[in-house]
């Protein structure tokens, strides 16, 4: 081979090698790496770590998903970090989306067409205050997100808060990708009362469950379930919440059993006894009628109350001569559940810091009925608790020896199970039995309506009882109603509004054991009377309803597919009086999310994302910092060079 030819071959070889190197570079980075990668989040609070649920949500997309952020380019300083964080999180969605997630952030103010488009989506600019040269100005700023998938879209209109972004976004994706979510059924105390109209006597927030209904309605399609006439629980209901079941008939228990057998998920908030807030805490015994059914499933609620050294205090007003004094009395019936007594694995409770239960009963798991199902003990009392069948000082009297409770010896105290869930397949309680007949329901008397507080007792009523839940609860109820109305207006029930922030934390009950402030002295806010939409009632023809006259011809499903049954021995936590307490609200919402959305979507709970703002730095300090960093360090380097030069020259 001539030298010239060899040279040519070598040059050609080099070019070919360079070309192959380039091809390898392109293939590795655009074809192979995007499919096989791992990401490590170095941030302290794992700010950018999206949960496995979100990852699998975007990984499993069948069609392209577009997430569009609508953010004004110029935002007030307080909000300036938000679009940056949102973009960062969106990039995570994009990274795991295998090319199916497209993200874009635009400023609607810059383009007339975009502005019209977002207005059509219902996105409006926020009026945000900003400081411009010592003047307060109000700017119109866009801060919203929208998710598009095929012909579906979902808008997250308010992105002025960074918390719960992943949760809201993933929920929106679930909604646009899965056309319909299962409905929630709510079966409440047959003696529950409707919230009374403002200024109307007889509101009884301990017996009203309107707030939970309204709150869930902002996120799910919620139906009130009535089975006393032998109606089947509607097939479209995937999760059923039974709140303070009372005197349920055999037939109602049968319908609930068959609901479980169809694979429905069940959460029961059960009371054995409760106390009427409007009647000096008169004892109200509650027979659920589900005792045998629950025992068959492996749950037994003991007809006792748990009292705990780890409890809340209740502010009580009492007269002493001319003076009216307030005293914080220990109230062992209000259980304060600490973090260490809450299960760390189950998504319903694992992120709840603490929980508050009111007049709860001990729960037992009947091992011989569990049949190999997974049992998760969710909530326990502290190990300094005891149980009682006779209730001392339920109404904390200030007469001699107040705050007295018969306490067993330290060694006789124990930790009681208060909530548990079973996951697995269940056998029907009615296997091999007859379908129970429908009984004509008796008309119960409403416990809260007739009462009212005798004027003479007014000053003795513990305000903690009297007031709890009412003012803040009313506000939350109003907010929930408003949301629900908007949601209903926007779509036909399935298109939900983004999750509402939890209602305001409770005022007095949610404090530590220290002194508690007196509740609001304003007149007790009375929840408004409202005409609720009740699909199960309004459309009885939808159900396979069988009037009592008809003989039920029903096949009994004898074994369920894998499903979940949760039992908690306190329904008061769901009553309007207490539902505003953040842990109660979160517990219910987590339960519903976990049962309805399944998987681990619930793990995407809101997390606070805090902007680490530095307090104002004095000008002189700022000057020195700037001087040292901008001037000092470079000067140090130059000085080093100079020394080196001197040394070399010498």
């Amino acid at each position: 081979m001539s030298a010239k030819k060899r040279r040519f071959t070598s040059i050609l070889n080099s070019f070919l090698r360079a070309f192959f190197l380039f091809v390898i570079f392109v293939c590795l980075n655009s074809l192979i790496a995007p499919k096989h990668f791992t990401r490590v989040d170095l941030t302290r609070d794992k700010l950018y770590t999206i949960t496995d649920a979100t990852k699998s949500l975007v990984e499993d997309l069948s069609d392209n998903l577009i997430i569009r952020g609508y953010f004004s380019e110029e935002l007030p300083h307080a909000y300036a970090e938000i679009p940056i964080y949102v973009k960062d999180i969106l990039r995570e969605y994009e990274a795991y989306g295998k090319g199916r997630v497209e993200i874009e952030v635009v400023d609607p103010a810059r383009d007339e067409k975009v502005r019209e488009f977002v207005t059509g989506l219902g996105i409006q600019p926020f009026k945000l205050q900003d400081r411009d040269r010592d003047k307060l100005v109000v700017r119109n700023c866009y801060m919203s997100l929208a998710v598009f998938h095929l012909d579906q879209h979902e808008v997250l209109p308010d992105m002025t808060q960074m918390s719960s972004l992943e949760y809201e976004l993933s929920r929106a994706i679930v909604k646009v990708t899965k056309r319909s979510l299962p409905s929630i059924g709510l079966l409440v105390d047959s003696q529950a009362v409707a919230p009374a109209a403002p200024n109307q006597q007889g509101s009884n927030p301990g017996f009203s469950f309107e707030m939970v209904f309204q709150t869930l309605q902002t996120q799910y399609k919620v139906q009130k379930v009535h089975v006393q006439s032998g109606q089947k629980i509607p097939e479209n209901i995937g999760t059923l919440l039974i709140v303070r079941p009372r005197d349920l008939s055999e037939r109602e228990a049968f319908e609930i059993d068959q609901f479980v057998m169809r694979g429905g998920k069940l959460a029961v908030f059960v009371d054995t006894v409760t106390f009427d807030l409007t009647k000096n805490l008169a004892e109200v015994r509650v027979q659920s009628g589900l005792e045998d059914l629950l025992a068959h499933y492996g749950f037994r609620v003991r007809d006792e109350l748990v009292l705990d050294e780890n409890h809340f205090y209740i502010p009580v007003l009492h007269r002493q001569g001319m003076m009216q004094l307030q005293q914080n009395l220990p109230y062992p019936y209000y259980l304060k559940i600490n973090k260490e007594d809450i299960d760390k694995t189950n998504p319903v409770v694992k992120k709840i810091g603490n929980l508050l239960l009111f007049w709860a009963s001990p729960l037992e798991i009947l091992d011989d009925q569990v049949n190999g199902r997974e049992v998760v003990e969710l909530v326990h009392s502290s190990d300094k608790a005891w149980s009682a069948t006779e209730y001392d000082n339920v109404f904390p009297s200030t007469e001699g020896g107040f705050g007295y409770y018969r306490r067993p010896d330290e060694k006789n105290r124990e930790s009681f199970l208060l909530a548990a869930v079973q996951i697995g397949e269940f056998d029907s309680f009615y296997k091999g039995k007859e379908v129970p007949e429908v009984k004509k329901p008796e008309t119960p008397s409403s416990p809260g309506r007739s009462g009212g507080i005798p004027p003479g007792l007014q000053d003795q009523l513990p305000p903690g009882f009297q007031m709890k839940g009412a003012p803040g609860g009313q506000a939350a109820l109003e907010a929930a109603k408003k949301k629900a109305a908007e949601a209903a207006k926007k779509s036909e029930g399935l298109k939900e509004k983004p999750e509402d922030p939890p209602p305001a934390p409770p005022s007095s009950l949610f404090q530590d054991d220290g002194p508690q402030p007196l509740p609001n002295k304003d007149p007790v806010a009375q929840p408004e009377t409202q005409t609720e939409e009740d699909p199960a009632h309004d459309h009885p023809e939808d159900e396979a309803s069988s009037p009592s006259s008809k003989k039920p011809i029903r096949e009994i499903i004898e074994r369920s597919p894998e499903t979940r049954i949760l039992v908690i021995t306190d329904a008061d936590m769901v009553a309007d009086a207490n539902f505003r307490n953040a842990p109660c609200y979160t517990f219910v919402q987590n339960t519903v999310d976990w049962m309805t959305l399944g998987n681990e979507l619930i793990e995407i709970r809101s997390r606070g994302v805090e902007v680490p703002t530095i307090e104002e730095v004095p000008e002189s300090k700022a000057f020195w910092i700037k001087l040292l960093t901008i001037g000092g360090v470079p000067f140090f380097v130059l000085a080093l060079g100079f020394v080196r030069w001197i040394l070399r020259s010498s």
Partner: protein
Amino acid sequence: MSNTFAVMMKEIRSYINSPIAFLFSSMLLGLIGYLFYMDFFVRPVADVRAMFGTMPILFTFFLPGLTMRLWSEEKKVGTLETLLTMPMKNYQLILGKFFACLGLLVATLVLTLPIPLTVNSLHPLDFGPVIGGYLGAILLGASFIAIGIFFSSITENQFVAFILTIFVGALFTFIGLDVITSKLPFFADFSLLSRFGSIAQGIVDSKDILFYLTFVALFLGLNFMTLELRRWR
């Protein structure tokens, strides 16, 4: 290995024996500090992402100044032929020069530490993204150095090497701008800027690390081939 190290030390010595290294370092440090503090007290957030944010553009213009002489000077002074006949492999020469430059960059980056430490004294800083930022800065710098070494090897003229490095470096940086990637998202995969953004945010992704490593390997590989080709001139 020892050959690579010897070349590296020789290059580092030649850098610090001339004012280049000190000038390069002090100017880069001054600009990083100035650009960071320009906005910092206006919107005081305990976060040094803005400091890393200035690096792609600063590196685009500064690092070519450091790399332009690596081969061009050897060629110009005629020491290249001697170097190539020495008992060491071409790749050792390339790696030695590459690591010398990278060492200088790392030393400069170490001197930017007072910035995060000062911010930390004002408000506790999340050091995760800071570590990510430095890792990203080193990888980004390594990529610019690799481009620079390659262009220095194809021309005797340092200025031409400088301009070509800026041009190609800027190209690989600016194809990652939002204006471009929103229309041509494919470019984001090959942009030094896009990849850097996510590391500086505190997310270390194996994709990004692989990208930078293959990017450096590509340009060092091209450099290797230009040296091989010299044998046939």
